[in-house]
């Protein structure tokens, strides 16, 4: 009797494990967009952690100004008649390359496409000058241009792409006192 009971319990546990396995495998870890701003001179710090799934769900509900249904409309006047969509599309389809390199006495600027990322570096050589590093996965640029009209960018799709792109340090800005960092990972707190 006892053996039979043990057998039934074992079968139940196995059935539960088999049943739960696909669900556990299907469940993907939540991804977070982290923003930290540290001001060393004032001793201040601000940390913001946003679950990407939340941003993805909230964006389509915002319909104000240029933002509607997760898309942002870019007016030609705002961009001084630069076709940002055509620019991004050209960037997307071109091979890895250095697009812009500016070297001045006090400033270096570099815009390139490298290893599937759009990379922007700005160095201000002056004392306490700014250092800006931007790395945007090209998948995100692709997503920005997907399913949109000519003068629109799909922000929701870009967030989805960001979510799938793996851990990535997107933006760092440093100057003499402040340090700004924006990145994506699956940790629910800033380090």
């Amino acid at each position, binding site marked *: 009797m006892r053996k039979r009971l043990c057998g039934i319990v074992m079968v139940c546990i196995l059935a539960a494990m088999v049943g739960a396995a696909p669900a556990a495998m299907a469940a993907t870890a*939540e991804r977070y967009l982290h923003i930290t701003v540290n001001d060393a001179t004032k*001793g*201040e710090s601000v940390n913001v*952690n946003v679950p990407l*799934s939340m941003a993805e769900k909230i964006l389509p509900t915002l319909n104000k100004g240029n933002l509607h249904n997760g898309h942002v409309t870019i007016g030609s006047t705002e961009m001084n008649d630069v076709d940002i969509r055509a620019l991004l599309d050209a960037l997307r389809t071109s091979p890895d390359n250095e697009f812009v390199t500016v070297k001045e006495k006090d400033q270096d600027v570099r815009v390139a496409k490298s290893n599937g990322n759009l990379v922007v570096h700005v160095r201000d050589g002056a004392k306490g000058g700014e250092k800006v590093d931007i790395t945007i996965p090209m998948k995100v640029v692709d997503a920005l241009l997907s399913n949109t009209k000519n003068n629109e960018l799909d922000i929701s799709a870009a967030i989805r792409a960001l979510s799938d792109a793996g851990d990535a340090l997107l933006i760092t800005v440093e100057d003499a006192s402040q340090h700004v960092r924006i990145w994506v990972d699956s940790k*629910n*707190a800033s380090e």
Partner: protein
Amino acid sequence: MILFGKIALGIVGTAVAGVGVLCSEGMIEVKVVERQPEVHHVYVIAPAMLVPIGMHFAPQRDLSRVATQIRPWMPTIRAALDQLRDSDDVTLVEVKEPGEHVRVAKEGGSIVVDVQDENETVHVSTPIRAISSTIEQLAASGPTI
């Protein structure tokens, strides 16, 4: 004797059911410690369901005004609260300054706000379900357009 037993059972049953309904939306917890000029401790824990009930006693004119302002944002608020409810625990915002620390987090099913400065410490924990039902009720009050 049996009659008294039945009555007692009825009273206890009603009380338990009442407490169950009252606590169904969780509890709001407020803790305040004032350090200056004297040390004061305030600790309040109350059923979150009291908030929507309490709103029935708020002036209708004020509720209508707030409802008009909040209604356009309801889809956004609903989406945010739904996602927060389903998400893992997370510190949403943390601000540190010399002598001051503010933290807004999602812990369990609640939104927790902690504020610490030299003079006082404040901790407020509110169940997301209660926030949701209160805002829904607030949006529903007043004239519909």
